[in-house]
């Protein structure tokens, strides 16, 4: 087990290095840079000064190693767009909002998805099952920006119930938290993962409802409640860990689309503006953060899976 985790961590480090190298070389390989003199001509001395300040006059590999060694100390440099702050500060402040969106979405997606899936499984072909099927179809065919746009049309423009956008600005329950402007982005964002979760829960629960040990449990006279809690759900919810795996980093790194439709000042929106402005330090830090988050979450889900389901052995994966 320790050996396995160590190996995985090592490959995570390799992945991060590869990702950073690709991003770094891509950003330097293309013509044009943040201090091109298209918009504001500079005297050569001033330009040289700026380039020296940001270390852009040094060889590429020096820039890279310097960057990475600083990054290990959480020093990601100074964003070109806002030189008065640091990249770490900027990410912290924007990520706070993205994390709020992500957590709320996670809550809605799992809080509704799992019960809906269970109910649908227990009442196959009933109206609630039809609703779940319909919703999971909707979640698949409607990208979040399509759903966001449609819900703005319906709830803000036509009905006028909810604000057009923003985050923590209008109709808040507790001082900038749980606001009216949270509702649409969270629902538009949550529907796709909710659909996946409900569908997986449904099929997983159905599988176990038809299994031999559930029949045995019923045959020995166990109450339906005990059968459901101790035999069906306990087994059926284990696979949800793998479903959760890719959803969590996705939600926590923010949806570029949701953030730009609803004008949420989060990490995703900032990432897009940073790439436009060739804000190297900001782009690098965001990409590294996302890659790291993905890697860690995948590792954690794999380990969690073995803890929850003793039939799965980590070493066995090598044979596949």
């Amino acid at each position: 087990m320790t050996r396995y985790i160590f190996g995985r961590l090592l490959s995570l480090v390799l992945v991060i290095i590869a990702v950073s190298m690709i991003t770094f070389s891509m950003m330097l390989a293309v013509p044009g840079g943040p201090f091109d003199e298209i918009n504001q001509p500079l005297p050569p001395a001033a330009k040289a000064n700026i380039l020296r300040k940001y270390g852009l006059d040094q060889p590429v590999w020096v820039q890279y190693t310097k960057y990475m060694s600083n990054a290990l100390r959480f020093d990601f440099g100074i964003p070109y767009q806002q030189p008065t702050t640091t990249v770490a500060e900027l990410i912290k402040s924007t990520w706070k909002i993205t994390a709020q969106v992500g957590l709320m979405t996670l809550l809605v997606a799992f809080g509704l998805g799992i019960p809906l899936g269970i109910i649908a499984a227990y009442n196959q072909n009933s109206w609630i099952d039809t609703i779940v099927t319909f919703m999971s179809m909707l979640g698949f065919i409607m990208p979040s920006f399509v759903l966001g746009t449609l819900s703005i049309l319906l709830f803000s423009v036509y009905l006028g119930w909810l604000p057009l956008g923003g985050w923590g600005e209008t109709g808040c329950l507790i001082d900038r938290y749980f606001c009216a402007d949270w509702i649409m982005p969270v629902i538009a964002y949550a529907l796709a993962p909710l659909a996946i979760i409900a569908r997986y829960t449904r099929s997983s629960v159905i599988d176990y409802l038809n299994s031999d040990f559930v029949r045995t449990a019923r045959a020995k006279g166990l109450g339906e409640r005990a059968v459901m809690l101790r035999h069906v759900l306990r087994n059926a919810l284990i696979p949800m860990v793998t479903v959760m795996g890719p959803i969590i980093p996705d939600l926590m790194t923010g949806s570029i689309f949701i953030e730009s439709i609803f004008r949420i000042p989060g990490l995703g929106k900032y990432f897009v503006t940073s790439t436009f402005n060739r804000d190297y330090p900001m782009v690098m830090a965001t990409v590294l953060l996302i890659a790291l988050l993905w890697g860690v979450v995948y590792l954690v889900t794999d380990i969690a899976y073995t803890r929850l389901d003793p039939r799965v052995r980590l070493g066995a994966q090598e044979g596949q």
Partner: protein
Amino acid sequence: MTTTTNPAATSVSDSNPPVPVILRRHRTLWQDAVRRFFQNRLAVLGLAIVVFFLFLAIFADLIAPFAYDKANFAQVRVLPMRNPAYPLGTDEIGRDYLSRLIYGARTSMTVGITIQLIALLIGVPLGGLAGYMGGKVDFVVTRIIDIMTAFPGLIFAILVISLFGGGMWKVIFALSITSWIGIARLTRAQVLSLREKEYVEAARCLGVTQRGIIFRHLIPNALSPLLVAVSFGIPAAIFGEAGLSFLGIGINDPIPSWGKMVGISGAYVRVSWHMALFPTLAIALAMLGFSFVGDGLRDALDPKMTR
């Protein structure tokens, strides 16, 4: 393997006559799959939607009432049904919205299908090679796949486009960089499992050449899961293009793209509701069509599945 539709009519495909049995016409796996596909109502509906969009894409020049870039500055953001010349209204510089939607289908279909073709061209040989050769080749390919998986595809595409600029071929390039990974992994897994199958073993023992095994056994058997993957990959690629264009970094003006139309509509959403509504419906409908086809293909191509 033949399936019996009516248990009373005993089907014996390799029977020795003269036994008075009702002989069923021999059907290949693919004929069977086609039959199953067309018995699935949702799949046929999906196919109809896909064919409809393909038709629009191919014959856009003939169907569309206006050229997609024909602006009429006297008729800006006309609402639908107000002016008989513009049944679906006009956009922010007075271009016919219906025509732009029709040409938008061309953009979406081109991007979606091209990206999947590229994904096949890269993914199948790479995955197949890794699965068949094993050893060091497999190790290297698997590591590349691992690294590419950790790289978030959309972020990567945005990075590439913001560096190299937008436009249809750059969008295709940017989305292709990560699109082959799933196909490669699938092909590798298929080849790995098929390689050990008894019938491949048997063919090898009978002295069938390596070429024969690859073309007669491995490829046909790996084909159906790949087909399903592609049918789900096309809407994913369409979604990717729409997303990039929505952010304003995808298809360049004046070429229409549904995603771009949705993105632009955001500024006018309070009054010109039609600018947001129609392209979103088009995207949703296209996604629906492809996903029904994908589901139908998956069900039809899995002969082990019983209905």
